């Protein structure tokens, strides 16, 4: 099964727990595949609620990636290229949502952007707009949790691309903006793509912050995970179908990123 190592056999104390870990990770996924009602899979997909949830998840996750790219790329560049006081603090603050429980993120978003929130109240007074329980709120919640992944990935790529090329461009007469567009960004593109895929995956699976801040209304704020949660008690079979779709999407993400993370030593 394995090539014999010149250092001797792998000790049972290591490989047995390793086997346990693999079984633990793989069995639920296999169970899901087995339990999926494949016979009715296509029909389940065709119900209006599922189609609405699928369509909403697709739109909001793509909008999230766009939002991350628009503000996350500049933030990553500033963190990687501009020296300023408090840079470490900003980086730490930006990464807080990485470890924040999603429900807390939802509550925090309500506190900021809710009807009577810190920014939400003046916004409502000025324009009459309220954000919570709208599709826009879904995108905001997703962006809040996905942005740190994106920024960290892109900042890493910008740092590893190094400043030597930026300097070469500057000496050749390029402005910083020209350099960013023509040199820095193209060289960091693999990191940008990886960050985008990560943000997309994070958005697709987001549940806690979304239900808290945007609610769970079919058609406007009910994404796939919210739909699974809503139907599980009444219709476990439909829930498994939906879960299967998300599993397939996740595997797709993994395949997209395989060159980056599944090859030992290739990680950025």
């Amino acid at each position: 099964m394995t090539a014999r190592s010149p250092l001797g056999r792998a000790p049972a104390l290591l490989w047995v727990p390793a086997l346990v870990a693999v079984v633990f990770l793989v069995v639920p996924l296999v169970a899901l595949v087995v339990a999926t009602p494949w016979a009715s899979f296509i029909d389940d997909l065709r119900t209006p609620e599922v189609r609405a949830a699928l369509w909403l998840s697709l739109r909001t996750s793509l909008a999230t990636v766009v939002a991350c790219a628009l503000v996350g790329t500049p933030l990553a560049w500033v963190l990687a290229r501009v020296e300023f006081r408090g840079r470490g603090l900003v980086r730490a603050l930006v990464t807080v949502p990485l470890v924040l429980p999603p429900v807390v993120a939802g509550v925090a978003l309500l506190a900021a952007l809710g009807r009577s929130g810190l920014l939400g109240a003046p916004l409502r007074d000025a324009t009459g707009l309220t954000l919570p329980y709208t599709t826009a709120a879904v995108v905001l919640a997703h962006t809040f949790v996905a942005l740190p992944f994106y920024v960290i990935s892109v900042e890493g790529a910008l740092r590893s691309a190094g400043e030597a090329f930026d300097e070469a461009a500057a000496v050749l007469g390029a402005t910083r903006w020209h350099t960013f567009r023509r040199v820095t960004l193209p060289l960091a593109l693999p990191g940008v793509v990886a960050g985008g895929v990560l943000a997309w995956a994070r958005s697709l699976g987001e549940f806690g912050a979304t239900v808290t801040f945007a609610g769970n209304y079919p058609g406007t704020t009910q994404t796939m995970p919210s739909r699974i949660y809503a139907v599980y008690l009444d219709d476990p079979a439909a829930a498994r179908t939906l879960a299967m779709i998300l599993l397939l999407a996740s595997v797709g993400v993994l395949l997209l990123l395989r060159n980056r993370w599944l090859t030992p030593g290739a990680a950025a």
Partner: protein
Amino acid sequence: MSTPFLHARLDVPGRLHATVTADAGDVVAVVGPNGAGKTTLVRCLAGLLPDSGELTVDGRSWSTPHALPRDRRVGHVVQGRDLFPHLSARENVAFGLRARGVDRRTARARATTELERLGVGALADRRPHQLSGGQAQRVAIARALVTEPRLLLLDEPFTGLDVGVAATLRVELARHLASYDGVVVLVTHDAVDALTLGTRMVVLEDGRVAQTGTPTEVAARPRTDHVARLVGLNLVAAADGAGLLAFRPSAVTLSPTEPSGSARLRWAGQVSQLTPYGDGVRVGVRTSTGQDLIADVTAAAVAELLLQPGTPVWASTKETAVVRYPVDA
């Protein structure tokens, strides 16, 4: 008195305090040991490192007000590879023109011409990773020259190239530099570069200029151990403290006992190393006063004297073979 084409008084606290001047057409060879400040000097001239000095190039001040790198007319070729990896050779060369507002078609045409001038026109569509070290360095030089810089900075342009490639490129570069009307600053580790390409030589040591002059002058009367080693001369302080003595390794005689004759300078010491050199052997001798000397002797002499590292020997040379000059002439 007219201002020179290049007048630089560079000041980076703790790293560099150097004044360099040159006339149009000069090639200033900058030599010095590692950490002497050569790259710091080049980066200051390019505007990549802040310094509090004065810098005037071709009648314009680049220091008051401080000019950004992009506003200086500088070409910079660094050791190693800094061609943009995502652009073809032609796009790399066209980059500086495009950045300065030249339209795409003109930029491409001029880039192609410049690549042809440097003998790499056929490689215009290749990416840097598809180029050999020598080809990549030619593209880098084309990229620097195409923007018509007033100051061309070459930071060890031959480092990392095969010996043969470096030799060819050196000859070609000499030809291109002959028709160049700005100032070239050439940082090098190699005495041959300095002597063949340079019209002036600046020796840096500990961030300060230790010696300047024409390469021939500096090579004949080196004032630092580093340059003496570069040009293959022995350099010792005169015993009476009045000046420096330089002499060739081939003028050094080794003997097992103290040589007689008053007209000889002599040092007792130990053999520190032996390396093949031409037809003979280059013997390193560390004197009892801690001075390192080199002596070129025949293989027969090495065998006869039973020389090996640690062997006590006397090194001596005739007064007539020694050039004596003051420390700070």
